[in-house]
């Protein structure tokens, strides 16, 4: 537009206007022509790049399927490794992973997000997905997790006088004054489990009925997912928070207080193929890989309780009632109140 107004302005001043106008016009024309030429060249370059990229993409993944997996945030590290192992065994499939709170993933799926497999951190979100008609098959439990109390390095330090905040050496200390406790939101699986654990502990005469009220009064924030809880404790802004046992594997800056198995929960993780999946076969393969010894081993390495036989109790209920049998299986590391699982 600037080029257009320029000759106009010169024409408006009589006198030398007639002599300079053609010059200016020629200059402008030349400028535009050169500009168009360079545009053409760069266009050609861009088009060439695009077709080249297309060729490369075709040659590398011409017959490659993409399997989209929506998985709970707590599965982040474990599923990343499992996807890599799965891709090694199935070179025709490439796995795309999306992690978030289970409830949010379910909501996204309900509103048209495209995925092939959904792995939830609790059965509630899977049941809701079932009710919405999202599932294309039975939900299969593939792992279990327990809760643990993460304590910030400062609050859990042996020498409590070194800092001004609360000191936490046992589950009872959580009820103390000035403790900053963080939970996941009560709709997030991790938050719901935490409330269950707190209520179970309050039923124990050792803690007393007022325990749950004291703990609830100490809550300073309800985070949108369990990673948020971990983050606030790791940074030392909060003194303690309820997280999954598996979360502590990837974190050195916090201490852990184990929750006794009687009061702990068994968070069962179900996985299912989604109804709208275009890759049903690969989706089934991924799920069977997950429940295979190899997949289970990776999950256990990341702090989950797998579903292999030695972990299950000898129960008269039979194998089809995994949900119940897991209540009794108990977490591997819950032996009373061990303190200082990991120190940073």
């Amino acid at each position, binding site marked *: 537009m600037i080029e257009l107004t320029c000759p106009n302005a010169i024409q408006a001043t009589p006198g030398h206007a007639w002599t300079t106008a053609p010059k200016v016009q020629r200059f402008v024309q030349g400028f535009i022509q050169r500009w168009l030429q360079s545009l053409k060249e760069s266009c050609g370059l861009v088009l060439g790049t695009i077709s080249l990229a297309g060729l490369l993409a075709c040659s590398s993944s011409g017959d490659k399927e993409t399997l989209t997996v929506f998985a709970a945030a707590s599965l982040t590290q474990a599923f990343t490794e499992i996807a890599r192992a799965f891709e090694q065994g199935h070179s025709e499939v490439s796995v795309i992973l999306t992690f978030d709170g289970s409830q*949010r993933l379910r909501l996204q799926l309900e509103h048209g997000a495209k995925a092939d497999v959904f792995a939830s951190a609790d059965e509630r979100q899977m049941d809701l997905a079932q009710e919405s008609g999202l599932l294309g098959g039975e939900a299969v439990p593939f792992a279990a997790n327990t809760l643990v109390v993460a304590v910030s390095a400062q609050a859990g330090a042996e020498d409590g006088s070194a800092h001004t905040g609360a000191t936490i050496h046992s589950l009872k200390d959580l009820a103390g004054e000035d403790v900053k406790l963080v939970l996941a939101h009560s709709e997030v699986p991790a938050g719901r489990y935490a409330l269950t654990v707190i209520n179970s502990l309050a039923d124990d005469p050792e803690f007393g009925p007022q325990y749950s009220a004291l703990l609830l009064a100490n809550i*300073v*924030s309800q*985070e949108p997912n369990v990673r948020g809880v971990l983050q*606030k404790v790791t940074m*030392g*802004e909060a003194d303690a928070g309820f997280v999954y046992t598996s979360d502590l594997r990837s974190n050195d800056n916090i201490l852990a207080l184990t929750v006794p198995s009687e009061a702990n929960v068994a968070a069962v993780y179900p996985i299912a193929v989604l109804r709208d999946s275009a890759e049903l076969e690969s989706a089934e393969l991924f799920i069977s890989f997950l429940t295979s010894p190899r997949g289970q081993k990776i999950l256990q390495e990341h702090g989950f309780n797998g579903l292999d036989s030695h972990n299950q109790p000898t129960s008269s209920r039979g194998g089809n009632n995994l949900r119940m049998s897991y209540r009794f299986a108990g977490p591997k590391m819950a032996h009373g109140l061990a303190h200082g699982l990991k120190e940073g």
Partner: protein
Amino acid sequence: MALSMRRRFFAQPSAAVGVGAGATLLYVAFIGLPVVALLIKAAQQESFFSSLTSGTALTAMRLSLISSAISMVVIVLVGTPFAYLLARSRSPWLRLVDALVELPLVMPPVVAGVAMLMAFGRRGVLGPPLEDLGITLPFTTAAVILAQIFVASPFYVRSAKLGFQSVATDHEDISRTLGVSPWWTFWRVTIPLAAPSLLTGLALSWARAISEFGATIMFAGNLMGKTQTMPLAIMSAMETSLDTAMVLSVLLILGSLTILVTLGIFARRQWQGAA
């Protein structure tokens, strides 16, 4: 010539009006459709009124209004003289400060939240000295207000600075030569002339403070009645059902709209008064 043709086309008032109308229509549809769709979908909820008057919604709305009002008082009290100085001073140092003012605008809110924690958090730079004084900021309503001030103040300061720059120094000089004190001049001459810009800035800044989310959840957390403002309540409601979240969103939009429109009307009156 093609060029002159085009020039003539744009010179015609009807063509210019046509282009303007088309652009307006496109813009209004693009911005309006999502908002209208949200209103319609929310109004269709059976639980519309019960969600609207639920404890969570009212508590969050009250907290949002109170915290943002306090933020605005602080922003106006500190931001106005600061913006005036920015507008009048030619110091190169102040120009550096001027660039700094706009930094929160380009920061993602979550980054702003992390930065606030690094400054005022327990392990932050000012955390330990503050703790010695018995002040802990994270997870408090004060943290909500600080986060709002951080992200929302640039909108006010920018607009106020431009407003003060548009006030010719002649007016102030004349006032002072007539024996009026600098303070009184500022109050009776400069402020009224810059008022439309100040009000516009205040409206934008307030709307930004009310909708603040990222820095708040990082720095202040999410607890009903204490740090759970409307955007955080919407996020929490969304974990349960999108329906409740939609109703709360409508409430938030109506609240922000009321502020924008009211201040807009005041600003327009000031414009007309000045003209």
